[in-house]
């Protein structure tokens, strides 16, 4: 029991809490919104995107953390870009080879993982300063934090736009489907409401807004 209470003060616990709730990349930091709006119209797209981004975050953080003592400070951004670009191309070819349907559904957004702010942000803010074991855990926590927000948005949007979840019909055919949820404005509505609810639950508000 004592061990459980003391767990709150370990670095592991803090890293995972940062990624999942306290500094969640989408809900709190509002990073990576582009892909979160574009591909969350179906749950399987969101799962695939979440897995791909998680893989890229973990991989790039690991590699950068390993070589962090050899990167000259002046060219560190370019080094991050090279590492991230290589991993994104790996993900792209893997999807193209083994899941061609998903690849065509995700379209250009697989290649655009390279511009996802979360990947670059974790490299710069965490991986460049921390040892490998923490970096791996941080990448995993941030990836899961990104994925579950995406899946939550996608569940709401897919139910309202198509009446299905993972292509399994759950609403009756007579339900008037909301076409607005299948396009980007619906993503904005759902994401905005989700950010409102989650910030209210975690009591996390912008400092300037209350001042």
């Amino acid at each position, binding site marked *: 029991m004592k061990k459980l209470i003391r767990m709150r003060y370990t670095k592991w616990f803090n890293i995972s809490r940062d990624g999942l709730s306290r500094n969640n990349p989408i809900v709190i930091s509002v990073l990576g919104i582009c892909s979160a709006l574009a591909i969350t119209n179906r749950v399987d797209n969101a799962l695939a995107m979440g897995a791909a981004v998680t893989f890229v975050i973990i991989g790039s953080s690991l590699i950068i953390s390993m070589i962090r003592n050899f990167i000259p400070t002046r060219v560190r951004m370019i080094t991050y870009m090279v590492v991230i670009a290589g991993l994104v191309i790996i993900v792209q070819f893997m999807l193209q080879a083994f899941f061609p349907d998903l690849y065509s559904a995700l379209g250009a957004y697989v290649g655009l993982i390279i511009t996802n702010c979360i990947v670059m942000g974790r490299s710069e803010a965490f991986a460049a300063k921390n040892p490998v074991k923490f970096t791996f855990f941080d990448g995993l926590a941030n990836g899961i934090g990104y994925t579950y927000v995406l899946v939550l948005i996608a569940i709401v949007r897919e139910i309202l736009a198509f009446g299905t979840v993972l292509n399994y019909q759950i609403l009756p055919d007579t339900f008037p489907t909301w*076409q607005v949820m299948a*396009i980007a*404005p619906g993503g904005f509505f759902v994401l905005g409401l989700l950010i409102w609810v989650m910030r209210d639950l975690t009591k996390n508000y912008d400092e300037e807004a209350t001042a």
Partner: protein
Amino acid sequence: MEFVTKNSPHLRRPNANVVRMMRDVAIALSPLVIFAIHQHGLSALWILLVSVVSMVATEYIYYQIIDKLNGEKFTLNNKSFTVYNFSVVVSGLIYGLTLPDQIPLVIVAIGGIIGVFLAKLIFGGMGQNIFNIAAFARVFVVLSFGTALAYTNHVDADLGATALGVLNQDMLNENATNYGFWTMFSGIGLPGSLGETSALLILAGGLYLFMRKSFDVFVPLTYVGTVFILSLAVMFTQDVGFWYPATHVLAGGLLFGAVFMATDPITIPTTRPGRIYFAFGLGVITFIIRLFGNLPEGVVFAILIMNMFVPAIDYHKWATNKFTLKNVSIFTAIVIITVVLTAVGVHYAG
């Protein structure tokens, strides 16, 4: 010297208040309601009832939940609930009157609930909203359930399209005049939304609001005038008859939107020159959507787009310094440039 403290609207009139203005709008809308029920039968009554009740009920439930979360006890009449000053009733009526007559009631209810929740309640309720509630609800219905919008035609069963629908297919098609001027003006038997067809009753309502000074008459005048001038430019350059500007002014939701939606005191600028720029922008966007857009009508989209620009055109210096020579000449230059650009654009697009 006597100091008076009161809530907005701070108009330069002693007896202006929210209840009086909103009640006037409701009175001005009542002939349109009667006309819609007369023309479309009981289905119109049901659509209007559902649209009003869905908005009122959503607001009531929302404020009861907020009070519960703030730890207050349950009271039947809530102080934030705006049914007492007719605000939410007027929003619901306007929203219902913009809907087509064959729309399923479920869709009406969904649009009302989402509209009042996303456009009004989460911004902080009455007086805080950025976007026009009725326009938002209508746009939500158009974008979500575009296939469910069907019109009944009482004049000619073969010709299913509205006048603007004909013009949307072919920009200068003279079939748009098939209805005749009197039908377009009175709206009897014209296909279209519940309250948007009768230009006569809308003008009567606008005249009543003008005589009671419950809205700024410059907004609808500038709005309709802009559309009229732009369509006149197209008429002269493309060599079509006078039916073209007349159709653009009388058909669709232009008059209804200009009189009842674009004059909502919450979502439009507060200064007089700002309002004129606002209405001019509305006219230009409406005309461009009608001419070059994919949809036949653009009034509600124009209102939402210009609502976004209200903080930018609410220029503080215009509050006192109204119509100097410089301001008027700048505005005239903008109008002339817009007319020329529209004429050139129609020449190359049409």
